[in-house]
């Protein structure tokens, strides 16, 4: 369950008890605890939002707003009742959904344009491929998008993803499979190379 030593990463050893302790200290305004929470989760939340939105400014807004919301709940004396990571990413997911609701949806035509073999400059090809994948991803269900963002965008393990999503490990395992298969269908991939 340990990750490869990346700073700020979650681990099951710390995410449950340590986060509960951090949250308790944060409620009292403990600066160390607040800083630890921010340092631990901001990069992950930013990457999650960037993965979902593909927009730097919007991802910054989402990551920052999550912490504003956390302060609001702490001030109101209503701290997260579930796991801290689940709460933070849950808020981020809703903010992302809110962004999608306000922003014009990328049209299917864009995807079709990408998949129609339109040539692009070599240096832009990678970017276009990302856009293509992101456009295809938006055709998936929110849960499928979320599991891909957490597993492939943020690099969370199955266990961590399960904790964040409030699901069992087996459920996440199945969900990541269905999400990948659905993404493949949307991208028009086949089983043959």
């Amino acid at each position, binding site marked *: 369950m340990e990750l490869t030593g990346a700073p700020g990463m979650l681990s099951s050893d710390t995410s449950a008890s340590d986060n509960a302790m951090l949250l308790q200290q944060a409620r009292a305004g403990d*600066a*160390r605890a607040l800083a630890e929470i921010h340092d631990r989760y901001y990069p992950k939340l*930013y990457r999650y939002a960037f993965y979902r939105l593909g927009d*730097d400014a919007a991802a910054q807004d989402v990551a920052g707003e999550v912490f504003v919301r956390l302060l609001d709940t702490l001030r109101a004396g209503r701290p997260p009742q579930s796991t801290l990571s689940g709460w933070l990413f849950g808020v981020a997911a809703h903010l992302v959904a*809110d962004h999608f609701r306000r922003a014009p949806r990328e049209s299917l035509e864009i995807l079709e344009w990408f998949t129609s073999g339109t040539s692009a400059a070599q240096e832009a090809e990678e970017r276009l491929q990302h856009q293509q*994948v992101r456009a295809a991803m938006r055709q998936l269900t929110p849960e499928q998008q979320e599991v891909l963002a957490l597993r492939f965008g943020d690099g969370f393990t199955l266990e961590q993803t399960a904790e964040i999503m409030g699901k069992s490990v087996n459920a996440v395992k199945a969900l990541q499979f269905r999400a990948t298969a659905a993404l493949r269908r949307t991208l028009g991939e086949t089983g043959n190379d």
Partner: protein
Amino acid sequence: MTDELTEAFDDCLNALAAGVRLDDCLARYSALRDELRSLLKVAGAAQAMGASATVPQPAEMSSRAKFLAGGAQLRPASPPRRARWWPVPRAAVALAVLVFVVAGTGGVVAASAQTLPGDVLYGVKRTVEQTQLLFTLDEDSRSQLQGEFDERRVEEVQTLIIQKRTTRVEFSGQVESMEGERWSVRHITVLLSPETRVEGEPSLGAIVEVSGTSQEDGTVLASLIAVTDEGAPITPTRLTPTASATAQATPTATPIPTSTPPPTATPLPTETASQDPANPLPGASPTPTAEQDEEVEFTGLVESISANVWRIGGQDVTITPATEISGSPQVGQMVKVKAVRDHSGALVARHIEVKEATGQPEKSPTPQPPKTPEPSATHEADETHEADETHEPSETPKPTRTPGPTRTPTP
């Protein structure tokens, strides 16, 4: 079949992350080989999409500063320390009430609101603040009010520094750097002298109260520095751009003896050849683009301002008469810097431009994005497409229930 494929897919993800070759992994599942290869290719494309994300350090640090400043308001107010700075005799409170009642609408109190230390009406401003605190009975509200007043003190000092005024000041904040007799507290350069009295044991990250005199060179000469809170540690790694992103994206050559290594550790098969997870994602964007005698361009927070040298984004930048300054940069603001690095390695600014209004914590709650409900206890049905378009009313009050472990049956 699906269950078998689900397990095989996860097993291959883990194996690839642990450094196993794709063909070796596929060899374990010869009957599912083509199907697995196709799925893993898609997973690789999905993973590569995330590899391009670089956490912007200025945004992270700005968010951190706001979060910590807001969090400070969660702490119980400490009346003794306020009393030390501005003892308010009962007679003064009575006078303030009188002033508030009699002259408040006449503009005296309003006029004092914009005053700075050293101004005639500044005492009225502070006394009114103390009175407000006195009459705020709710502890949370009082704490929040105290936080706002603390922010005012910092802004006052920053304004005095810009105006190059010499007067007695006081403020509190986190110790951000300690270089001999030159410290940085809330992006304000604080100088210590033999006469400076230090209470407690200040360390990096500690919250201190500073009393002293603002100097024309943009520093504050401290007469007293008192630790009020050990505070949050500031480690050098926090100042290193995207350490976590770099570490996370670095592939692990040695297989990890765990069943669930992170999927980002090893590249998955993808047609995007250039998306190498080993790419050491660069730090704050944009970063300096030259070493010597070349133009350097970067964006960063103004940490301190003195006559000739400003500290921006952790770098000392020399200001010369030839430096063009667009806008009125202030400590805490984000600026874009164009500079050249001279032979001694010093950065000499050619142009400094204000990028945003302020990097300081805001006094009012951030208005955007619009309120959304907090996470609900259940997630949308897996096969319900576009459920995000229907499940989250944007204006409904926040439910207190947050997502707890919801067991979803495995298909």
